[in-house]
């Protein structure tokens, strides 16, 4: 080929010089480990300055007492006292709600399930992630099909994700606002949901609000799941389905044995991040029912932060992160193989 061209590739390659070329050459000469760290540098630098540095600072705050008067942001150094106070319940009075559920001697042995931030957060996380995953999966499967108008269905399904939380809150708040929304009735004239047990003032009531907030969150964030899972579906080699079909796999079996395992890593990433985000839920609560009615962990962080209780706020933030870490490690341990990433 190309006999006319006397010089081969390498000659051409070697004759090129300049700082750019020598940089490239230097980069290619790195070992795999060096190269890995080299490529990670920009991301790590950004994270170091914008995330790690503030976290270290904030961790420092958590070791100081709150200071509500005077110009100083923090009070005196108290070591781990904030943490102790938080876990012992001694700080609950300063929070919109208790942090841990109280213990009682009678069945069911825990009180204030709904008024403890931890339980509210866990309940919210478990249900919202569960439903978002299931529904998102179903939506992704639909979007993966080829049909007329698919583009529009796709937009329709994804668009709730783009709705600002303020608006999301407004939409649902109004739907369940007595005298405004039609999903809520009055004693004389109950709506369907009321007959199913929803109270007439659901947004002042922790359990009803929690339920509605989960619904609102599922409405909005399912799109996140659907989008990610869809991307996973689109990346599967279609010829594998040919093989499976000839081997006699039914639609369900194709799903179970090919689709599912192949997108499992994607689903796990999606679930992982949804879990993390759900455990930090705040905005939708604030806009729909308020942090006092439905106290989540992040509610505690933000409320104390807004009340200038920076020590407590930092403490709750770190404890929240720790709790998320515990939940996440369940994923990691459980799915280490499937993920292949850890």
């Amino acid at each position, binding site marked *: 080929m190309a006999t006319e061209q006397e010089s081969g590739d390498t000659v051409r390659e070697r004759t090129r010089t300049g700082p750019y070329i020598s940089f490239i050459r230097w980069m290619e000469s790195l070992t795999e480990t060096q190269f890995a760290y080299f490529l990670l540098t920009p991301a790590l630098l950004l994270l170091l300055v914008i995330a790690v540095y503030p976290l270290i*600072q904030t961790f420092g705050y958590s070791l100081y007492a709150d200071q509500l008067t005077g110009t100083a942001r923090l009070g005196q150094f108290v070591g781990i006292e904030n943490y102790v106070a938080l876990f012992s319940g001694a700080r609950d009075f*300063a929070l919109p709600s208790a942090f841990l559920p109280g213990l009682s001697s009678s069945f069911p042995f825990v009180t204030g399930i709904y008024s403890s931030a931890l339980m509210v957060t866990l309940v919210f996380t478990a249900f919202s992630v569960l439903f978002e995953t299931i529904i998102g999966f179903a939506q992704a499967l639909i979007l993966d099909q080829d049909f007329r108008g698919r583009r529009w269905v796709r937009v329709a399904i994804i668009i709730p994700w783009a709705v600002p939380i303020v608006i999301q809150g407004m939409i649902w708040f109004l739907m369940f606002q007595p005298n405004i929304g039609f999903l809520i009735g009055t004693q004389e004239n109950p709506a369907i949901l009321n007959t199913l047990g929803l109270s007439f003032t659901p947004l002042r009531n922790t359990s009803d609000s929690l339920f509605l907030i989960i619904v609102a969150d599922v409405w909005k964030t399912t799109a996140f799941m659907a989008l990610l899972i869809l991307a996973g579906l689109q990346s599967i080699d279609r010829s594998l389905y040919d093989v499976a079909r000839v081997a006699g796999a039914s639609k369900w079996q194709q799903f179970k044995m090919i689709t599912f395992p192949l997108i499992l890593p994607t689903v796990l990433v999606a679930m992982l991040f949804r879990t993390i985000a759900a455990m930090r839920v705040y905005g939708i609560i604030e806009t729909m029912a308020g942090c006092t009615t439905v106290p989540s962990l992040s509610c505690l962080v933000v409320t104390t932060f807004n009340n200038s209780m920076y020590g407590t706020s930092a403490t709750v933030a770190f404890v929240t992160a720790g709790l998320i870490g515990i939940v996440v490690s369940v994923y990691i341990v459980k799915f280490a193989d499937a993920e292949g990433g850890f």
Partner: protein
Amino acid sequence: ISGTGGDQTETEAGGSQTPINTEAPSEDVTVQWAADTRVNNNREAIFQSLREAGLPDNITVEVIAGSQVTNNRQNQYQQWLSSGREQPTLLMMDSGWTIPFIARNQLQNLSQTLPDSMTSRVEENYFEASVGTAKGANGDLYGIPLFPDFPTMQYRKDLLRNAGYGDSDFETWATESMSWVEFSKITKEAMNANPDTQYGYTFQASVYEGLSCCDFNEFMTSYGGAFFGNPAENLFGPVGDRPVTVDEQPVLDSIKMVRTLINGEDDEHALDGITGNIAPEAVLQWTEEPSRKPFTGGDAIMHRNWPYSININGAEDVFGEDLGVMPIPYGVTAEEAQYPMTGGPVAALGGWHVTLNPNASQLQKRAALQVMKAMMTEQFKLDIFEIIGWIPPEPDLLDSDRAAEVPVIGRYLSQLKVAGENAIPRPVTVVWPQQSSKIATEVNAAYAREKSPEQAMSDLKNTLEQIEQSA
């Protein structure tokens, strides 16, 4: 990289003690004023008014249209002031949270840096309750009230006429408030007389700041109760060194009263004498707007709300002259009440102040002082009453002819004056935000029959005491 930060403002705050030169600066200065969108939307008229009120031409004002959502503004200010930013120079602050900023030395002490002539005018002429929320523990003034806000009871004259009441009654009620007993009875009568009207009385009892600061505060105070004992002494502190009195009988009575209004007289914690079933259960989830809608829509007879809603409901295409306004009813009279400032037709106090950023440059402060001066003129106060509907912060101005000519609200100035004179501020201190959410939760739970009034208030007392001790 610096340490935990936050302490660098200490020294600068010290600098804020230097008196400000009252001479107007000669160079061109632009003063940034953190206000809200309504100011911004009317800024041409407002600037005009400031000029006419004597603001020199070389000083211009730039409005930052902050959010109307008061919490958001509070958070923003907190970050700006605690990080020592020089801008904005003037800040519009909710009377509900000015005091914590004062407690943190984050505002310019006006008593020390402004000429006495200015501060004493404020102390002497302005609504006393308003001024109280702009003062520090040392008694110094840190903000100048821009406008106060007092809720009133609005009602439908046309519907009450159907129940046999007439103009003479309305006239009496305008300045002489009625008791809750009377109020509930009249409302019930009106409901019976107007069977198509869905609700009797709508107010706000959602779990939010508005319940603790205002609705509940009014109910409680009107029965002679108080959060922390004698309001005249303990309202703004000393934190940790004052009694918590939310479990006292007047407070419990007020709760029972509300429970009766909502659930009827057969509620197990009903208050004797009160006619029940005049308020919908929905109030437990209502804030201002949702509670106003039914009233504006003609579905309610009585409605408690802020003056903004008088402008809406009194508009010609809504009720016009059929809108009646009266002070909030009372549980016990002021004389019967245990504490000063309680009993009688109390109105929770809202409203906004203008404060000065202590970190601003001297030049900025000088210019800002000129702006504040202009804002304190009668002319400006009345202009802005016309422009935005901000109620003049001086009781005397409510009697002025110009004020009376302001459409709609001009008709109800005497009621507002009564409300203003009986205004009860929320007990703002640095721990108030914490206390407020606890109060709202417990009170709402008690209203909703989830807890007995006694239980709720003793729980609340415990928590409030803990918070008091923590500070």
